[in-house]
């Protein structure tokens, strides 16, 4: 299947500062891809190069089979810094921005009104943007970015500034986009959204790609751990097979103690548990935990979130 987006050896330099270094990855059509990284990782610089807003210092980008800037009508983009004409009405903004994407005014108005209705903003179509709340404005911005039914949607930090209810609503919108065949690339530094939405994630740190793959593969990068509760000593736990390290999580109920045991790569929680029971250790409760994307993120980025 042809990629919706492909970056090959892309770098971006601002004077002495290299914002993006040798970035390569592909996003398949019809998938949701999380473009993850801490603040200042180079996500926004990369997104701007994908859209042709700035040119890479080196490397090649292909977006919907064309060079950046050549397929803008087929792309929907919501920037990190939201902005709309404050004195225009919601529907007029949507129609205007859809016009720039090649949609006729009558069709854009019809679609815009339907989408405003769907987002619960039907009564606000004729209101000026400046009279809307921040959450409402963000919804109008999202509609403006989707009203021309783009094949590829790029959302730069789409969840920032949204309350939990609206975040959930946005997640639903992203799922529906993928369901109708659109490709979605969204950047975020909040892993929970990516965990719930993405099939593929690309992880960036200090301008460099540190990971590209599925969620499962990403999680595998972080050590799995086994929580054990009981009257247990650190030495007993470190003596179990496959245990790399332990963390004292503090006292538990009835004189027991909670330990978090990190498993070595290639070892399972079963091996350690089996050995613990065979050795007659006082294990009162146990829980094998898969690492979260957040944990994988911290491991993969070296724990540096600057």
């Amino acid at each position: 299947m042809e990629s919706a987006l492909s970056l090959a050896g892309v770098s971006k330099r601002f004077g002495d500062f290299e914002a993006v270094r040798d970035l390569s990855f592909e996003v398949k059509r019809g998938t949701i891809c999380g473009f993850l990284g801490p603040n200042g990782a180079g996500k926004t610089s990369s997104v701007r190069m994908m859209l042709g807003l700035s040119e890479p210092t080196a490397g090649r980008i292909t977006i919907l089979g064309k060079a950046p800037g050549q397929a803008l009508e087929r792309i929907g983009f919501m920037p990190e810094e939201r902005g709309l004409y404050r004195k225009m009405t919601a529907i007029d903004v949507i129609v205007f921005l859809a016009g720039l994407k090649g949609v006729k005014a009558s069709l854009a108005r019809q679609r815009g009104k339907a989408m405003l209705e769907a987002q619960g903003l039907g009564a606000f179509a004729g209101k000026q943007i400046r009279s809307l709340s921040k959450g409402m404005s963000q919804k109008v911005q999202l509609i403006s970015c989707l009203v021309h039914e783009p094949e590829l949607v790029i959302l730069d930090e789409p969840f920032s500034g949204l309350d939990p209810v609206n975040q959930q609503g946005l997640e639903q919108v992203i799922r529906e986009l993928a369901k109708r065949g659109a490709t979605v690339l969204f950047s975020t530094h909040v892993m929970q959204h990516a965990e719930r939405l993405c099939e593929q994630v690309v992880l960036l740190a200090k301008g460099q790609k540190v990971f590209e793959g599925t969620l499962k593969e990403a999680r595998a990068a972080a050590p799995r751990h086994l929580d054990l509760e009981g009257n247990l000593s650190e030495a007993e736990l470190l003596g179990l097979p496959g245990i790399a390290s332990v963390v004292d999580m503090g006292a538990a109920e009835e004189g027991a103690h909670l330990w978090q045991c990190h498993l070595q790569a290639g070892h399972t929680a079963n091996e350690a548990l089996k050995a613990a029971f065979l050795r007659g250790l006082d294990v009162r409760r146990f829980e094998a935990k898969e690492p979260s994307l957040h944990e994988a993120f911290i491991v993969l980025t070296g724990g540096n979130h600057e």
Partner: protein
Amino acid sequence: MNKTFLIARREYLAFVRTVGFWLSMLTLPLIIGGSIFIPLLMRHSAPVETVAVLDLTGDHIEGAVVEAIHTHMPKPGANGLLESGGLQPVALPAGLSPDMSVEAAEAKMPQALAAGPASTIIVATDSGDKLHFRLWSVDGHKGRVEDQILWDLHGLQYYKLAGMHGIDHGLAHDMRESRADIISLTPASLAGPKKDDLAAGVRENGGKFIGIVISYLTWIAIFSSSMILLGSVIEEKASKVLEVLLASASAESLLIGKVLAVAAVLMTVWGLWGLTAFGLASFGISNLPPETVHDVMGALAAVFSPLHIVLLLAYFLGGYLMFGVFFAAIGAFCETQKDAQAIIGPMTMIMMIPMITMQVAFTSPDLPMLKYMSWFPLFTPFLMPLRLSQGLPWYEIAGTLAGMGLVGLIMISVGRRAFKVGALTGGKLSWGALFRIATQKSTNG
């Protein structure tokens, strides 16, 4: 092209839909119209001054004074806006007579004025070699009669002195009315009929006058439109719309759309102001003899040849694009007008130089300094409209157009790149930053 049109239309509507735009646009015609018509209406509403003459000179000059008053009487049937009240001689109020003393007469003035019908009483006395006229008026009318009859009363003194020296009254009159014939001429004076002073004036000085006016208008239009563009981009930058727009349209489309929109706003303003000027001119023409109107229109047509108009438009468009795009690019870096001051301040000062020069050019449009300055591309759009009225050699026109075009293209190129860079960065604007943008390779975006 469609995107450029959409951007231009949105910008244009955003401007013209504001109440402030219409208020500011109507202000100038209202001020000009008001400053012309209100004084006329006030003069028209002035009442006829009723004037009586108390002649205490013993020289019987009452008749001459009354005759002078008669020359200022309202003309029968005149009712135009340009007509003012005028003077009307009336009989002396009761209680005043030529045989009373000055002191006695003036003691009765308050009652005499209150009794009417005279609103002003001229008391004439003679101190031997000089006539004295004391003009008594009711409250609020002081000075109105004096303004109109001043020259005539001085004339009476002139004739008195002439008589005392044995000069014939007729000769004295001729001497007083006599003037030397003084005319300023240029080679252009040889063209066309000399029968009408106004038409000759338009033919000889119209080009210079119109050149000055167009130079000022060009400066005002370019400066104000550049500031509008700057403000418009700053507003978009501050409201974070620029990045959204750049993801849908090229920087060129955005810039050209904005420039076109402001040009359309300018045309709207000029259209309304032009209509106002046409109305005022029509009013002025309606008060001129048809023959004069014909000659003036002929002289104006000679000044405004089609080539002249094309050249004026070329200089204006060059200046508008040069400064407009540059100011818009500056705006892309700034979220407030204050942010733009580091660049706009010096640029405004550069633009002020031709404005100052124009004040000198009004009297001497052919100064060598003006010629040299008009070759400087940043001054060309403002000074060449003025110089065009002087009949320039073709190489000067071609050279200045080429210089302005070249610098304009450089400014547009730098402006386009700066606009794109500025729209996406929050960096501080400086001349150094602009220089780096101007000199960096275009592939670095």
